[in-house]
């Protein structure tokens, strides 16, 4: 009942008609919804938000049978596929906004609009190659050598190095900030800085050179050292810089991260409930 035969071209035309019919339907909704008063609009948004959440929340909370499923479980797959489609359209919204902004810069001849032309040309060229490549992979279009070379030049030799270099700039900023901005100005800053330095030395091979090559501390912990932890050899083992760094990370840092996790989790749950029930005033 939910499936119609699409093997033949008439089947494909049929599907296209159905899609166009829904398109017309949703266009028709626009004046109807526009007539809604602001309170009605907010109610409609709140309703859609609530039901979108209800599908997943109910499926999680309802009891399950032996196979670990309840009557809502079959709805998960179509729901997740809908989220993939809407998610893809939402991602493309960012690109839509960016291109719209730069096209307006060109049309209104705003200052520096020359750079917007560069951006639009790059967008169209890369868009052409990227869509062609994806469809060629799916077998909808032919894979040609021109496509191969063009995409590799634009992607591997321009987009990848540009992004990698952009991210690597931060190393320079950290270095100059380390010299000029990172001050031991309070107890807190000194605790943080001392821990950071111990970790920075311990997790890289610098710590190995100092504690194992120069100081010659034991590298391995033998069973005998485990038996009496306060023996000189075991204390020596644990005083090696890599061991100190690992102890800071595993014994001191882990509980702090767990406390932050609990804070983030509880704040996230409160936020999820507020958003699900559309209680948030600022944005809805």
């Amino acid at each position, binding site marked *: 009942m939910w499936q119609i035969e699409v093997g033949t071209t008439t089947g494909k035309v049929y599907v296209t008609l159905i899609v166009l019919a829904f398109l017309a339907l949703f266009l028709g909704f626009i004046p109807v919804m526009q007539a809604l008063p602001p309170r009605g609009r907010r109610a409609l948004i709140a309703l859609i938000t609530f039901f979108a959440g209800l599908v997943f929340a109910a*499926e*999680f*909370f*309802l*009891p*399950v049978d032996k196979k*670990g499923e*309840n009557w809502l479980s079959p709805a998960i797959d179509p729901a997740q596929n809908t989220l993939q489609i809407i998610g893809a359209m939402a991602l493309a919204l960012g690109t839509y906004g960016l291109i719209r*902004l730069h096209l307006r810069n060109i049309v209104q001849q705003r200052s520096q609009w020359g750079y917007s032309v560069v951006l639009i040309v790059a967008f169209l060229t890369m868009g052409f190659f990227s869509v062609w490549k994806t469809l060629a992979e799916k077998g909808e279009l032919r894979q040609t050598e021109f496509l191969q070379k063009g995409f590799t030049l634009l992607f591997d030799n321009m987009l990848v190095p540009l992004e990698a270099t*952009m991210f690597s*700039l*931060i190393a320079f*900023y*950290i270095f*100059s*900030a380390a010299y*000029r*901005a*990172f*001050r*031991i*100005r309070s107890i*807190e*800053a000194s605790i*943080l*800085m001392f821990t*950071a330095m111990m970790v920075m030395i311990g997790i890289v091979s610098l710590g190995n050179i100092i504690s194992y090559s120069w100081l010659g501390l034991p590298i391995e912990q033998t069973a005998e050292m485990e038996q009496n932890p306060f023996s000189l050899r075991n204390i020596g083992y644990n005083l090696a810089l890599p061991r100190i760094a690992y102890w800071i990370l595993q014994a001191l840092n882990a509980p702090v991260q767990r406390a*932050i996790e*609990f*804070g*983030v989790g*509880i*704040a996230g*749950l*409160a*936020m999820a*409930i*507020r958003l699900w*029930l559309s*209680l*948030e*005033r*600022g*944005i809805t």
Partner: protein
Amino acid sequence: MSYQHAADNWFSAIIIALIATAVLLNIARAKAGAQLYIRRIPGLDAIDEAIGRSTEMGRPVTMIPGLTAFGVVAVQSLTIFKYITKQIAKFVTPMRLLTADATVYAVAQEAIQDAYNEAGRPDLYDPDNVRFLSDRQFAFASGVAGLLQRERVAASFMFGEFFAESLIFAETGNIVGAIQIAGTISFTQVPFFVVACDYTIIGDEFYATSAYLSREPVLLGSLVGQDIAKLLFILIIIVGVIAATTLGKDDEFIKLLGMPGGWDAFWKAIFGGS
């Protein structure tokens, strides 16, 4: 080790229900007009002190919401900036609010105008003081750094979501000798702010600051509800650890508190069921 359904351990459903009730109940109380108490965090004293010292220097004060896109965090950053603007309006200290998001820029114009009206100095509001520099990370950062140096800013307030460019703000602010107060929920940037700024408001404290200033019912109620949840977690940890030490850590009661499959194991141990 993971939950597919609440039925894996009904303890999870109980905990979520308790927290949800605490949050929703307190939001309802706050909306009904109850005065919910939020303590004044030390960060606010640091802000007032920074405002005081910046007025003596007579140089401008900058407010930077970072790259925060318009949303819950941006609205709360603007709440804090409104408070700061109202305080500096008394000393006629010039201010600059620099944004990287077009929507935040538009909403910020209104917020700063409201702040000056509420401070009784509508004449001080100048639309040029709220600026949209650029929506790209490093272009925005170099724009902010340029302004900080040109105007030899007295104080710089950074509230919102920050990424790697926060280093440029903090370093330039240090060179210019500005007092810097930062507040962010982006934990990866908090370490840099702590060592580069005079005071840093960390994680949940950011929400507490905006709730304290705005007295907005949903924020207050939610924060009080979250506090109850944290106290509940603390209680479970204390009870659980004592039980683990005395009864042994593989005891059914310990498994009940959160381990998937713990619910059935606990009932089976108690009632010796099927």
